[in-house]
């Protein structure tokens, strides 16, 4: 994915997060990529590459821009994290999440804890991201934690008020799952969706306009379905069975991220 930024020194272009070259201002999109999803399955940025698409600040090591203390991880661990992040940055939602966090100066304490249960977790109180094993970390896992961080900075009052077991905790988790599932299907990837029911599969197809674009809002009917599937999700997923739904907490963080991304939207 190419994108460029301009400053007093001219225009600099990046390819998939890596500093590539200075480019011709009259041709800021040197690969000729267009909007929508490219043929390789990764999402391509749409519209002007100058429009709200700030490239990773750390040249060929964008993970550093998210780290409070780069020395908290070994070089090998950082390299593995960077590999996962590079995949995330190929996707317009992953890129939008990363750009929002870095452009607002948000940094996190990264740590590795092999005895933790989830592959990755984010703490809104400590601004920390804990990873079980960088070797087995998937793009889905890390992107989900980045999105939780995005929620924290974009939901009034932050995520802490909706911690595990509190009213609203189900909303925080399910919003992240729906965003992930839409992305899996629109990117033509193979994955485990949050729910396997036919209704949920049809819901994903509907809200993405037959997998062509991401929603910036729900219709009343879609919103009703969304909360219904949230309940189904709690019933079927033991890890979240103690979470509680807040009926007026809509997925506004997801819509805001989609709206400010370069993904195709409706």
């Amino acid at each position, binding site marked *: 994915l190419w994108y460029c930024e301009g400053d007093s020194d001219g225009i600099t272009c990046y390819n998939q997060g890596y500093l590539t070259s200075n480019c011709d201002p009259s041709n800021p999109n040197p690969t000729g990529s267009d909007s929508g999803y490219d043929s390789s399955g990764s999402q391509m940025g749409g519209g002007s590459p100058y429009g709200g698409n700030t490239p990773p600040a750390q040249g060929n090591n964008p993970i550093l821009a998210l780290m409070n203390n780069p020395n908290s991880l070994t070089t090998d661990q950082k390299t593995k994290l960077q590999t996962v992040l590079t995949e995330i940055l190929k996707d317009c939602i992953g890129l939008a999440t990363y750009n929002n966090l870095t452009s607002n100066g948000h940094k996190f304490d990264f740590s590795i804890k092999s005895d933790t249960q989830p592959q990755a977790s984010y703490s809104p109180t400590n601004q920390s991201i804990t990873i079980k094993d960088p070797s087995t970390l998937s793009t889905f896992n890390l992107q989900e934690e980045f999105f939780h961080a995005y929620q924290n900075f974009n939901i009034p009052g932050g995520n802490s008020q909706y911690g595990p077991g509190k009213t609203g905790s189900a909303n925080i988790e399910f919003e992240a799952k729906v965003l992930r599932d839409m992305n899996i299907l629109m990117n033509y990837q193979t994955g485990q969706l949050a729910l396997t029911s036919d209704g949920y599969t049809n819901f994903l197809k509907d809200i993405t306009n037959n*997998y062509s674009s991401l929603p910036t809002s729900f219709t009343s009917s879609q919103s009703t379905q969304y909360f219904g599937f949230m309940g189904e999700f709690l019933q079927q997923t033991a890890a979240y069975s103690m979470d509680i739904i807040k009926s007026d907490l809509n997925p506004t963080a997801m819509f805001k991220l989609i709206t400010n991304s370069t993904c195709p939207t409706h």
Partner: protein
Amino acid sequence: MKKYSIIIAIVTMSISFAYAQKIKPNSIIKTNNSTFITGDTKGESKSIFIENSRNIYQNRKPKLPPGSLSLIAKTNKYSLLSAFNQVFNKERIQELLPERSIFIQYYVSPSGKVLEVRFLLSSGTLITANELERLEQAIKSNVTFRFRPEETKGGDFFVLSQNVSYEKILNKTLE
């Protein structure tokens, strides 16, 4: 006269048989070697699930929850492309291109073997049940998945989903 009657009967049967292969909601469709069943149209997109009547996993709950697998990879990343190419030629895929994609649900054993598949199609799809029968077989024969063994312990089967782009089949980038 008798000759004309026989011809008309044959033509009528042929038309009926061809029509029977079309995917319609709430139907039982006989194919060459199997029977496929379709569900109701659902959602704003009026989509239909279709599967082999011998399928058993859809009504079962997997022992391990969704999200238990951190690695989901095809053993041969172009195996699904091979499966489609065994069933559809280029001209046929071009005919299907306006439908954009076909959604596939795989039911997979802990060792990565595809046990069953289900398809989600838009109503009015041009795909026939006979093509789906052949595609089902081609997927079962060609596609296997690779998981981390430690993540499949205690599992009986896993439900994986993929939206398959016809354009990716045409340009040979389907994985």
